[in-house]
């Protein structure tokens, strides 16, 4: 059977997320619990989480979370990393042995800083270098996979049900100001850990529910700009699109959302505001190949915030609620009630309407 990455596997999913607008830290246990009532939305073939603000002691370093098939892959990868980076700290990521999670690869994390001499030599900025090296490892080094590469954030994922994955990674020991969680329902999978969500590049992480019909149009376009879609998943391509639009092209998150889930032409033409009409038209004209069609609901995590977005026809469920400084997001209201029974202001954002929740400046 072909492995994920050699073949495209559609999947359905469960999503949950929570963020504190005041930047207050929350234990990872909260998001693990949120996945429980949505158990039937996953099928045990993938679960994962992303936490922001979890590595305050190493916040200035890129945290690489990696899967290795064996010891020799790790040794050779470390040698490779040292050509470009200073490894400030590295260790095995703590996990629990439990019957629900098996066949675990070697899971390590590296806190790294790009070598200044290398940056000057390659004429690249830090982020570009890190993203290129991540692409290179994932494409070229068999048995090695980078699944998280941002600063002061980290992704934890495995094959299994998400509530078990949270326990496996001891998420209760981490404190973050924002968390996203994901349970996967792939139609078939050889059970590879890298295929679980969230998918990340630098500090962007995406959890996603859906199967996008524009996949290959998006993939073939984005691969022109140095990205390599090694997994053939929607989440991967959406992450790269957001990275390209926001980091490389300098769009705001809202503008990027207006590319990915662009309003219909008829909606644009009916917009009474001339400036918006012009902007929507411009973005659609310049980036037609980055329009994402088909059902999706995503939560994009980044340093200091979350963005929630549905496809423009709203073909996947997604609700938002609030309580005090916290905002909760989930595929189902039940997940929100688990995190906060008294959450209010419950609403379902419209198709294509981005909802951005930003942590107060200086609080993260």
């Amino acid at each position, binding site marked *: 059977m072909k492995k994920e990455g050699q073949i495209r596997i559609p999947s359905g999913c469960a999503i949950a997320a929570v963020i504190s607008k005041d930047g207050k830290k929350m234990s990872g246990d909260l998001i693990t619990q949120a996945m429980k009532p949505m158990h039937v939305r996953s099928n045990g073939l993938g679960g994962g989480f992303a936490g922001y603000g979890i590595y305050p002691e190493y916040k200035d370093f890129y945290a690489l979370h990696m899967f290795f098939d064996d010891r020799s892959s790790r040794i050779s990868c470390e040698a490779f990393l040292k050509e470009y980076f200073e490894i400030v700290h590295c260790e095995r990521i703590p996990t629990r042995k439990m019957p629900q999670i098996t066949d675990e690869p070697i899971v390590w994390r590296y806190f790294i800083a790009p070598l200044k001499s290398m940056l000057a030599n390659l004429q690249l900025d830090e982020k570009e270098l890190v993203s290129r090296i991540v692409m290179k490892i994932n494409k070229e080094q068999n048995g090695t996979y980078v699944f998280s590469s941002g600063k002061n954030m980290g992704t934890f994922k495995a094959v299994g049900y998400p509530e078990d994955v949270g326990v496996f990674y001891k998420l209760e020991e981490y404190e973050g100001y924002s968390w996203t969680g994901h349970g996967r329902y792939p139609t078939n999978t050889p059970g590879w850990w890298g295929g679980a969500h969230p998918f990340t590049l630098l500090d962007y992480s995406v959890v996603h529910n859906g199967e996008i019909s524009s996949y*290959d149009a*998006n993939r073939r376009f984005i691969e022109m700009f140095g990205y390599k879609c090694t997994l053939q998943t929607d989440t991967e391509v959406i992450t790269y699109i957001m990275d390209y639009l926001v980091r490389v092209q300098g769009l705001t998150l809202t503008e990027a959302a207006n590319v990915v889930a662009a309003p219909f032409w008829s909606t644009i033409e009916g917009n009474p505001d001339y400036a918006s009409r012009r902007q929507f038209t411009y973005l659609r*004209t*310049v980036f037609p*190949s980055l329009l*994402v069609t088909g*059902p999706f609901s995503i939560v994009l995590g980044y340093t200091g915030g979350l963005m929630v977005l549905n496809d423009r026809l709203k073909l996947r469920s997604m609700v938002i609620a609030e309580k005090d400084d916290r905002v909760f997001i989930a595929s189902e209201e039940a997940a929100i009630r688990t995190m906060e029974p008294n959450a209010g202001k419950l609403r379902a954002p419209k198709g294509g309407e981005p909802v951005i929740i930003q942590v107060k400046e200086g609080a993260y």
Partner: protein
Amino acid sequence: MGVDFIYPEFEVIRNESRCIACRVCERQCANEVHFFSPERGIMMSDETKCVDCQRCVSLCPTRALKIIRSDCALRENANWPDSTIKEIYRQASSGGVLLSSMGTPKAYPVYWDKIVINASQVTNPSIDPLREPMETRVTLGKKPDKIRRGEDGRIVYELPPQISLSMPILFSAMSYGSLSYNAHASLARAAEELGILYNTGEGGLHEDFYCYGPNTIVQVASGRFGVHMDYLKAGSAIEIKIGQGAKPGIGGHLPGTKIVGDISRTRMIPEGTDAISPAPHHDIYSIEDLRQLVFSLKEAINYSKPIIVKVAAVHNIAAIASGIARSGADIIAIDGIRGGTGAAPTRIRDNVGIPIELALAAVDQRLREEGIRNNVSLVIGGSVRSSTDVVKAIALGADACYIATSALLALGCHLCRTCHTGKCNWGIATQNPELVKRLNPDIGSKRLVNLMTAWRHEIMELMGGMGINSIEALRGNRLMLRGVGLTEKELEILGISHAGE
């Protein structure tokens, strides 16, 4: 007679019990096949002149006529087919180059027919275009590499010139001269009503049609017929024609007999002189020369409209397209070996060039590998016969399709492949006023609008089935295609998987 005699290719079968000798067939046939015999009181036929255009069959009020293939055959020979032997007789008699019209009838593989389209089941909902918006609009032109912001932080809305189409189809270049006035009028009016574009071809633009400018592509070919400042400014885009799928590597020849009246004036050449387009543009002997012509034209129109460079699909098309994409062109048009023509040397039409599907796949992939796919839009032609051909072309990577033969069929063409004789009984490829008036532009344009409307509906249904609600998300989406009965190599070039994979 004698050694040169070739038994007529077709037989006219007249049902005597139905024929009322109304002589409609006689009046309708410009080839003078039918005539009335006063002695016998019946209609007779001279089948040597019949081209099987079906005009008489279509207009016979009693359905007394049919045209069938003659069964008088030479002795069967797999190595020497009938047609090959007869072509040798013709050339031995005339000493001339064989001439043909319309696309090649040779059985080249039609890859469109070996590609199947995907649809959603369970994991992803299909979309009903009757209930949900379904977008077929496309914008052609170079896209900027980088978003720029002004000092106020706002996006600067700068954009190279673009053309917007309501659906990813344009009417391909067919010159006034090779086509009749009424055929051109039909195309222009239909393009306007549909919100798409038609193409003047290389014969200039008749003064009556300047009003359709926003829906017109004006062509500049090697003969430069009818090219002047107002002409260049008249359309929405300018197309430099380097080559044509039916006759790569050679020019064109419109005989002096067709250079009459308006056509002479429109082409800006004296009546009765042959209009000869040289094989190359004599100011383009290399890629850097092309760049100069592109920018000369851009200068002339103040960079206000996109420039299309049209080439025939030849062996090295991917590298050629890459060169064009770096030469200032906004749009590349590629025409495949099965593309049509008003007249072309038979041997060239039937043997030179490559199928458009392979050319398209190779070019799109190459431009992406080089990271310059965004520099240009890609329009393809060379036998796009249906809405599914369009959908497959878009999914392989085209921005839009040129159609010509399909459009002529809508106008009444019966594909008899004798355009070069100038005796088109359907009033399309002729300048004979009696024949031209048979094509009513009111009806012609309506039929074109009908055809495109029907295709658009079908495209929307197919997109909806795939769960795609904008044509932009279909472009280059090769995962939506699978091959059936194709070799590994063909699949590799097309960049698609085989069905079942």
